[in-house]
């Protein structure tokens, strides 16, 4: 396999414009002859499906939820970045580009990131035209706020529901196209396999989750917009249904999987309250604008937070990072929290928590102003913990939130399987080893509204595509594989529920491939995961049948894939003998505990190619060059 990034030559600022001109364009009359399959209906999927339909392509869109509006993009709280420079604080496309490359710790592709920063500006215009009710100032113009990892205010927001409002904007555009007949929507339908004919992605096999019926859909191109794989950890901020099945099936057909170990741990989530915990809830990072993080200076201090005098508190982020204060990037903030808890200074039950205190902000701007900024987050916190954050500091702890890794794609967002495109969180492209806050919404929408609708035309206009018969051997084989797998999951007849096995896998991955990793720990995980996988296939119990709505069966299929993906993550983490971004290998750190990156040996994208079950995957390296932002050690001090 050869990884061709297809990044255009020439100055980075003109690369996208030049590329748009160089790409093949499909004429309006021919667009309607082309069909595209879209899997997923989140920000990336819905925006791309709608935009392609507007151009004239025939689109089929699939989601496993009961409506495309449920996709997990909806849960993003804090905001979306754009280099509008409305506040006149010195922002520019170049600065957003620079911040994102640096925030990603020099493990992303410069040209992709530059394009993302360019398109950020258009996204806000598009969303406002759709009626997305972003926050406004009294003069009627859009409001901005600052966000972790940035020194300028470039984040647009809609209360604490920015993801919801942007998704509903994309969803409404999608429904508009469904009404026109350009998109056919298949809710409660899950993709279970990819159909590859003559080396090109030509369709998918799906299961209707209501009836269990398995069917195939064929098209000229397939797009995966299926989100991240954070649920491999069992506990994460992802929705419970979020899964890796679509990208994992594609991986097993030959799509390279890039940087699987780059998983982001979000610093501000509500701590775990007990073994029953089914998911973790994020408290938007925007809270760090006004909240101050602290723990008691002494370990084992059980006084109530209000009884601890300021002199006995350690505002550890402000102490360690005086210029960014409470706003260093997510990975840095997360590790700092882990560190103080490891020292025995954590607060709350189990000692895995730190305070996020709004007392000073309330004294400064008043309770009303804080309520306007974060009211819904404070309510959500109180509902979950039964504590009022206007009166006592929040308790927070890091949790798995986002996966920067994903299927490898070139500049056109096409994977290593021709015709298979991957957009949004499902691909690896723009965030390197760490994603900055308020940039996942930006990436999902840039990919969906403004990149894929162009680049897919380049593929469709240049590929010679013969029609595929519905009974083509590749189609029949994929259908048979899906049916066999369902049958196998139902016939194990063991003793353990899917949830118990998933939870056990999650513990392993969190312990050994979470916030801090070591070679020994990763080797241990690599020995344990295959044993657990064996236990899964021997001792799983799924009741009911395959011909009905069967939620345990759905979950089992997803966990089976997580059991394999977990191993690839650990393998990737073990091979990357450096610390960069969210990937912190304890062996590679500076004297004061900061990540030690190794640009000489690891400035590349690690793309893994599947070789067959039981065989080691092959590592391919796409070298990363930095011509515009020069290698520098990130410093939030």
């Amino acid at each position, binding site marked *: 396999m050869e990884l061709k990034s297809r990044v255009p030559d020439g100055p980075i600022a003109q690369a996208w414009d030049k590329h748009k001109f160089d790409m093949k364009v499909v004429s309006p009359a021919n667009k309607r002859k082309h069909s595209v399959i879209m899997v997923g209906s989140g920000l990336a999927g819905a925006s791309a499906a*709608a*935009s392609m339909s*507007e151009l004239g392509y025939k689109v089929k869109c699939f989601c496993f*939820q*009961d*409506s495309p*509006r*449920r*996709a*997990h993009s*909806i849960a993003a709280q804090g905001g979306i970045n754009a280099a*509008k420079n409305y506040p006149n604080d010195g922002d520019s496309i170049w600065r957003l580009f620079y911040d994102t490359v640096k925030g990603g710790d020099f493990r992303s592709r410069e040209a992709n990131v530059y394009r993302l920063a360019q398109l950020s500006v258009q996204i806000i*215009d*598009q*969303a*406002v*035209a*759709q*009626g997305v*009710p*972003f926050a*406004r100032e*009294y*003069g*009627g113009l859009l409001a901005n706020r600052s966000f972790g990892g940035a020194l300028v205010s470039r984040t647009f927001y809609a*209360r604490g*529901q920015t993801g*919801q*409002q942007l998704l509903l904007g994309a969803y*409404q*555009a999608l*429904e*508009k196209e*469904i*009404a026109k007949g350009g998109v056919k*929507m298949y*809710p409660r339908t899950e993709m279970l396999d990819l159909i590859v004919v003559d080396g090109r992605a030509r369709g998918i096999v799906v299961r209707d989750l*209501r009836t269990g019926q398995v069917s195939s859909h064929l098209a000229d191109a397939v797009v995966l917009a299926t989100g991240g794989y954070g649920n491999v950890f069992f506990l994460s*901020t992802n*929705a*419970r249904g979020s899964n890796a099945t679509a990208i994992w099936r594609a991986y097993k057909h030959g799509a390279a999987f890039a940087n699987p170990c780059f998983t982001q741990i979000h610093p501000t989530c509500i701590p775990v*309250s*007990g073994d*029953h915990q*089914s998911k973790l*809830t*994020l408290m938007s990072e925007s809270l760090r604008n006004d909240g101050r993080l602290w723990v008691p200076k002494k370990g084992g201090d059980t006084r109530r937070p209000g009884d601890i005098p300021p002199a006995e508190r350690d505002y550890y982020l402000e102490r360690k990072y005086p210029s960014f204060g409470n706003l260093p990037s997510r990975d840095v903030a997360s590790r700092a929290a882990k560190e103080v808890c490891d020292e025995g200074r954590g607060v709350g039950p189990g000692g895995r928590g730190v305070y996020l205190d709004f007392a000073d902000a309330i004294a400064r701007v008043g309770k009303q102003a804080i309520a306007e900024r974060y009211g819904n987050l404070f309510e*959500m916190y109180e*509902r*979950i913990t*039964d504590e009022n954050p206007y009166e006592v500091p929040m308790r927070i702890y890091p949790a798995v939130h986002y996966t920067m890794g994903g299927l490898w794609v070139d500049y056109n967002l096409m994977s290593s399987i021709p015709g298979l495109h991957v957009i949004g969180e499902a691909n690896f492209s723009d965030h390197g080893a760490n994603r900055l806050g308020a940039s996942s919404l930006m990436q999902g929408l840039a990919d969906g509204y*403004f990149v894929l*609708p162009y680049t897919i035309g380049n593929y469709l206009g240049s590929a010679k595509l013969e029609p595929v018969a519905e009974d083509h051997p590749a189609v029949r084989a994929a259908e048979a594989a899906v049916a066999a797998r369902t049958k196998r999951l139902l016939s194990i007849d063991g003793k353990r*529920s899917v*949830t118990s096995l998933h939870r056990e896998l999650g513990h392993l991955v969190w312990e050994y491939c979470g916030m801090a990793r070591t070679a020994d720990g990763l080797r241990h995980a690599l020995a344990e995961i295959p044993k657990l996988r064996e236990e899964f296939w021997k001792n799983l119990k799924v*009741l*009911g049948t395959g011909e*009905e*709505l069967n*939620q345990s069966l759905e979950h089992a299929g997803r966990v089976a894939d997580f059991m394999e993906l977990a191993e690839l993550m650990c393998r990737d983490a073990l091979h990357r003998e450096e610390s960069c971004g969210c990937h912190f290998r304890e062996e590679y750190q500076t004297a004061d505990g900061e990540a030690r990156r190794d640009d000489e040996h690891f400035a590349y994208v690690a793309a893994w190619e599947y070789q067959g079950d039981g065989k080691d995957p092959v590592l391919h390296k796409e070298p990363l060059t930095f011509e515009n932002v020069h290698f520098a050690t990130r410093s939030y001090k």
Partner: protein
Amino acid sequence: MNITLHVWRQAGPTAAGRFERYVARDISADMSFLEMLDVVNEALIGEDKEPIAFDHDCREGICGMCGMMINGVAHGPMKLTTTCQLHMRSFKDGDELWIEPWRSRAFRVEKDLVVDRSAFDRIIQAGGYISVDTGAPQDANAIPIAKQDSDDAMDAAACIGCGACVAACPNGSASLFTAAKIGHLGLLPQGQPERDRRALRMVAQMDLEHFGHCTFFGECQEACPKGISIDFIARMNRDFLAAASREREEKALAGAG
């Protein structure tokens, strides 16, 4: 604590349903309602009984996927709260709970507590959008929007489409859901060109889907986990009437009257 549950079990859309009694044991006050059901389901699987099917996804109160009647109240006893964000501290040891799916003619039961809410998507398809294609619209700050209008639009746009309003309404009306979208878009300058058409079409679609009529019981706003006000229904009715009368005038002018 231990809680006795009477849960509606129904194998499929056409099967007969019934209440089954279960005891949820050793439930902690910190569990969410759905985590309590997870515990019950794990126990059922242990006894080789099929787990209770229920819709859920984000479990943080924003996706709108979860929802059930708990003792006859949509999303249970806590105001402004989805089922996934309802915690067991709202209940006490020994409580007895009846758990049912959303009940409405327009929401078919798929299985147990899972219902079909696709009618909501079709109402949006009828006009719940602004017809702007992806492209290069004007700069986002070209049209100032008064903060109050924008905030009011956001109040309506906060709807999560869960269906509690329909389930709570004695008439099974989807007026609050429909009005929220009409209100959101109608309050913004971008939404003006299609305002009449939107109101006429979305209301017509709501009727086609067999939702009942609104008679201002107000149960919907009590059940709404996002606190959407029935003021928006008044606004929708006004938009609809104005649009209908304008439409008649236009037809009359065109000679169709």
